[in-house]
């Protein structure tokens, strides 16, 4: 279907997306946006898996299933994360990551 689009285009996109996600993780002050950055990262990984599967190794569905599992993991991660974030909001009345420095040295 889109065989004429080079593999590398996908890879560049996913890599960029991956590092954008990391950038977001490193700069967003809000815990939820950090979580969203994580989702970006995972999503870029998924693209990688899917694209590799499709373009290089279409005989088996390894990448496909890997993506599937990653989505599920992402969901459970998000669930727990949000639970904790809400907990934090209860305690701090804020979810700014900068407030989370009670422990340092």
């Amino acid at each position, binding site marked *: 279907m*889109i065989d004429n689009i080079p593999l590398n285009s996908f890879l560049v996109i996913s890599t960029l997306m991956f590092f954008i996600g990391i950038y977001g993780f490193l700069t967003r002050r809000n815990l939820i946006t950090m979580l969203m950055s994580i989702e970006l990262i995972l999503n870029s990984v998924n693209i990688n898996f899917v694209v590799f599967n*499709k373009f290089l190794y279409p005989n088996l569905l390894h990448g496909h299933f890997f993506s599937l599992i990653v989505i599920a993991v992402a969901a459970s991660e998000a669930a727990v994360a949000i639970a904790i974030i809400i907990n934090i909001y209860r305690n701090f009345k804020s979810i700014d990551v900068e407030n989370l420095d009670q422990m340092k040295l």
Partner: protein
Amino acid sequence: MTLNDIMFYLFAGSILTFSVLTVTSRRILRSAVYLLFVLVSTAGIYFMLNYNFLAAVQLTVYAGGIIVLIIFSILLTSHVSEKAVVAPVRQQIFSALATAAGAALTILTFLQYAFTPSASPAVEANVHNVGLALVSYGRDGFALPFEVISILLLAAMVGAIVLAKKEKHLATAGNQPKINPDNSSKS
């Protein structure tokens, strides 16, 4: 340029644009919506690649589930109009540098590598094949991860519940001994 190409660049463009917007927008709710767009665009690419099942999952679980969860929590924890505090410029610059370097190195490496496609005949990722693989326990079957992920989901559920559970007796017990007095560790 075929329609497919156009579609691809459209999706690719939207993925990149919205990704950037997600991590830069100062309104959290908007970020969430941009993220939704990214995820939907990704699903579009999956569709284009003919991985319909995966695309569907992407839409339902990711876009439908996670984003909704996130939006709920945003609504719970902040005002809609509230603008997010921006990280200091220094932090932004350094992070940008590090990530840019990382991206450059990674892309460079990718481009250097000569990927060799497998010569074996392709398997279509239709529901039949996917379903079969999910329950087959031989080589290239995914029954085990499929089972294990259920434990993970259960555990996450229990974990989330346990964390979210309000403790009635604690609300009243002001004299509860604090195991970690907050000032004790600021050394």
